[in-house]
């Protein structure tokens, strides 16, 4: 219930507690003894050979944790996965980031990692879509692709020897994100899955769950790669400032975007993992109960969502048995 700051009435508090107890009882067997705080001893069999991994240290011959988290064991390796920490990138992750600097041949992106990530001009699909060497002219025109503060979706490519992180955006789906809102949540709530791009057709909304906890909810864009069009649009925007007014997101779509965003806000403040199913269920719950978009952030809806999730998890575990 960390960070849950809600004015609850007596009944709501009881209901919420019951839901959380239910959730806890369902997951208790899995990891209640595996979670550690800093300086807790990690139980290992000292006879066996084991490898000390991340988040562990040696203290007088005992293995202790240096972060709060969950003990993970892979073969001989013992490490502690921190629950609340900055994002730890893995190669192939889909991330959403914000451009902080346009440098020579590269953009620097803030992705909630301890360092800024680097997106090289050469690891981008060029606006004209042709594979070729990047010329000096391309370098000069970098700002027409991404500017400072732009939100960009990309994939983690590799780590350099010095520990810095390289990104790539070599596909239609990656690129600049416009017309929508960015939500920043704790990265541990976004689990790795096969699909991080979701086009919610019934809403006409794109949902991108960045592994770094940056979540994009925006208007659906057909061919994301068509940067030529983007460029043309940019020019249009800068010349015809008044023209922007017509280009506002339609009200209905905006309602959908806000509803989804608030669903994610509720799930995050309750500490649930954010995945597509859960988001959609929350959205449906809110619209079936005809809850006003803004009231989704109120206490009552939080309690309802917690109860719904407890119910759902207990059903799925029963089914498994």
């Amino acid at each position, binding site marked *: 219930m960390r960070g849950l700051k809600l004015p609850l009435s007596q009944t709501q508090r009881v209901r919420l507690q019951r839901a959380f107890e239910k959730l806890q009882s369902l997951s208790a067997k899995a990891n209640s003894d595996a979670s550690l705080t800093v300086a807790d001893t990690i139980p290992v069999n000292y006879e066996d050979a084991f490898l000390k991994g991340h988040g562990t240290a040696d203290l007088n011959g005992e293995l202790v944790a240096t972060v709060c988290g969950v003990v993970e064991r892979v073969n001989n390796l013992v490490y502690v996965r921190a629950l609340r920490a900055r994002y730890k990138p893995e190669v192939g992750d889909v991330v959403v980031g914000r*451009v902080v600097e346009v440098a020579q041949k590269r953009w620097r992106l803030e992705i909630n990692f301890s360092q800024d990530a680097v997106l090289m001009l050469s690891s981008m699909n060029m606006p004209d879509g042709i594979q070729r060497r990047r010329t000096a002219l391309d370098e000069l025109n970098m700002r027409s692709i991404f500017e400072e503060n732009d939100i960009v979706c990309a994939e983690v490519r590799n780590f350099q020897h010095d520990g810095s992180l390289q990104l790539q955006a070599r596909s239609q789906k990656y690129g600049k994100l416009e017309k929508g*809102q960015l939500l920043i949540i704790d990265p541990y709530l976004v689990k790795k899955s096969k699909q991080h791009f979701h086009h919610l057709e019934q809403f006409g909304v794109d949902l991108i769950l960045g592994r770094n906890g940056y979540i994009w909810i925006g208007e659906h864009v057909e061919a994301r790669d068509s940067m030529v069009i983007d460029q043309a649009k940019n020019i249009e925007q800068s010349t015809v400032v008044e023209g922007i007014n017509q280009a*506002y997101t339609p009200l209905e779509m905006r309602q959908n975007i*806000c509803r989804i965003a608030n669903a994610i806000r509720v799930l995050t403040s309750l500490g649930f993992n954010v995945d597509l199913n859960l988001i959609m269920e929350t959205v449906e719950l809110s619209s079936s109960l005809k809850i006003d*978009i803004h009231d989704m952030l109120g206490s009552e809806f939080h309690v309802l969502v917690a109860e719904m999730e407890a119910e759902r998890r207990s059903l799925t575990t029963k089914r498994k048995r």
Partner: protein
Amino acid sequence: MVGLSVGEKHFIQGGIAQDLRSDGRKRLTYRPIYVETGVIPQAHGSARVRLGATDVIASVKAELGKPSALQPDKGKIAIYVDCSPTAAPMFEGRGGEELSTELSVALQRCLLGGKSGAGAGIDPTSLVVVEGKVCWDLYIDGLVISSDGNLLDALAAAIKAALSNTGIPKVDVAAETTSDEQPEVNISDEEFLQFDTSGIPVIVTLTKVGRHYIVDATSEEESQMSSAVSISVNRKGHICGLTKRGGVGLDPSIILDMISVAKHVSEQLINKLDSEIAAAEASEEES
């Protein structure tokens, strides 16, 4: 403060134009407001107010002092605001100073009334114990713990809550004293006097984005503002102070329109705040 991309800015402006903001609010809807009183036991009164991710604490301390020679029938009230670096790294060192003074001045202007003390939320004459000799000096300190826009409204609400939570010890004055001597006082530690807080105004900040104005802007929305007008309104619907932020000029008729909107909004806000304060006081007594 993180910058926003052109797309996001446009999205926020569009939302305000269409009366549906990023978190689903309408232009004149406040975020849920949550009041906690008595959070600092050392102070005579204190309150914490949360408005979305904005989180502020106000504390009231009273000390016995001497009224100034110019205004012998009035106690002194001082309001200061501190922006803690816990809220944002940019408040570290002198970084928060500018914002702190801006907020302090705006609050002083809105809550303390004119130089003669007329229209003040707290009646300074009620702080006098012996005219010209002894009075209470009231120190009101605000602390910004976490900032997500609309600090002024939150601070004013916190101060209102803290004052209604304030108990000032009753003072007994030894009866026979000569006129030029400082009278002896006896501070009671059992009997407390409370303020009449019904006259304390609330502050409504209207942030103008594009052609429309909104209440309770988040910091993202504040970054898009052309100008903002903070209007403090009391229960009678009278304006007790007004400050403008942001450079862009406004047409006088728009300002008058904003004032009438603020009056309308303040009614709901005062009622909401009063019920929250009452609830907070009740739950405090319970525990």
